[in-house]
């Protein structure tokens, strides 16, 4: 029977280490007063004693320069606000035409999902699935799951299975490629403008606004803070 894992996150003395041999500090600008805690660098495994950070301050690993932590104050409130904004823009991006093509008296309207639908109809089901996953399912899932965890947490409550859901959010994020999709739409727009009348629709503007909002929401999210709040909060 193996000894069960022991939580050492909040143990800044780090019992198994020889006394008087303090861990190194990160390269950091903008430290605020408070207790330090021990973390290991994600990219090189160096043990680092991390001080609490000022808003938007960065702590870099002294060995490999990985950004170990990013100060993000009011992380839940700000991320919830930005995620709601992102969902509104995403809804608009799906409800309105993305590009409209006029040629020989015909008018074709493309939305975000119509690309995958056409690919599916043409028999390219794998490709259709990949496009749908990265431009529709993953962005939508990412935002809604984030709200599912963060909104109750803002009230000090933990939604059912919140820890598992928050763990999955990290995996979903990798497959959400809205920013790459926007570039793809712009390339198509310029490419077709040569041979037909192409009108950019409201959805393209909504998508264009969505990118900075998504970037900002990533910057305001402090997963470490969310995890420690999940530890402290009672069930919903």
């Amino acid at each position: 029977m193996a000894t069960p894992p022991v939580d050492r996150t909040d143990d800044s003395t780090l019992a198994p280490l020889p006394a008087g041999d303090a861990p190194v500090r990160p390269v950091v600008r903008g430290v605020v007063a408070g207790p330090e805690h021990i973390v290991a660098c994600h990219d090189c495994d160096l043990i680092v004693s991390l001080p609490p950070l000022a808003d938007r301050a960065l702590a870099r690993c002294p060995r490999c320069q990985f950004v170990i932590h990013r100060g993000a104050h009011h992380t839940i409130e700000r991320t919830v606000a930005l995620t709601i904004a992102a969902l509104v823009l995403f809804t608009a991006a799906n409800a309105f035409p993305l590009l409209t093509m006029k040629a020989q008296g015909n008018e074709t309207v493309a939305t975000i999902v119509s690309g995958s639908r056409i690919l599916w109809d043409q028999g390219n089901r794998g490709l259709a699935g990949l496009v749908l996953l990265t431009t529709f399912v993953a962005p939508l899932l990412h935002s809604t799951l984030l709200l599912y965890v963060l909104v109750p947490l803002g009230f000090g409550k933990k939604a059912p299975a919140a820890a598992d859901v928050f763990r999955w959010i990290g995996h979903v994020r990798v497959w959400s490629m809205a920013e790459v999709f926007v570039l793809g739409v712009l390339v198509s727009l310029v490419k077709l403008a040569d041979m037909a009348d192409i009108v950019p629709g409201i959805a393209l503007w909504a998508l264009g606004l969505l990118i900075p909002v998504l970037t900002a929401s990533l910057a305001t999210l402090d997963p470490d803070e969310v995890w420690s709040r999940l530890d402290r909060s009672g069930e919903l």
Partner: protein
Amino acid sequence: MKQRTAMAENLVTCHDCHKLVHLPDGHDHGTRCPRCHGALHFRKPDSLQRTWALLIAAVVLYVPANVYPIMRVTSLGRAQADTIMSGVVHLFEHGMWPLALIVFFASIVVPMAKLFALVHLLVSVQRRSPKKPVERTKLYRLTEMFGRWSMVDIYVVAMLAALVQLGSLAQVEAELGAVFFGATVVTTMIAAESFDPRLIWDRRGRPKHSEEHSKTHG
């Protein structure tokens, strides 16, 4: 101040929630994070083997992705199939060089650079190279960050197919090359994810601690 790694102290960082967990036995097999229930590993399991396998798969997929056309444009009964490269050349010939550059970078430079970067990282780790660990770690981070941009060409094919559907007058269809290219992008993304950059730091010269050595291979 002495530099110590978490693994040497029997500490493991949860890959999912970054919690630092103490495993007193030094065995990570079958352990779960007390906070998020994710599986705990000192290092990503079989990182080198998995990354090599996925990388070789990606190289194999990348060949048909470039040989087969990615889309077929039918216009007034005349069909024209474009591969990734011929698409870029067409854009250049039509004077759309900014566009040609974007597609060239996203579809050719990024995937190739990613494949070479991963091979370099794998080989240097296996040779226990002590050279430039900071630069190699940065190279890994760039590889992870830029891989997704290769999807641009897939989205262009999808948008063109969605817009140009005037039956016999004009139609755009995705072709086999696009399927292989999509598979290449996905495979390289998973390959990059399987690589553990901490191995760059573990394996610099001969292993000092036999304990650390056994854990890496355990």
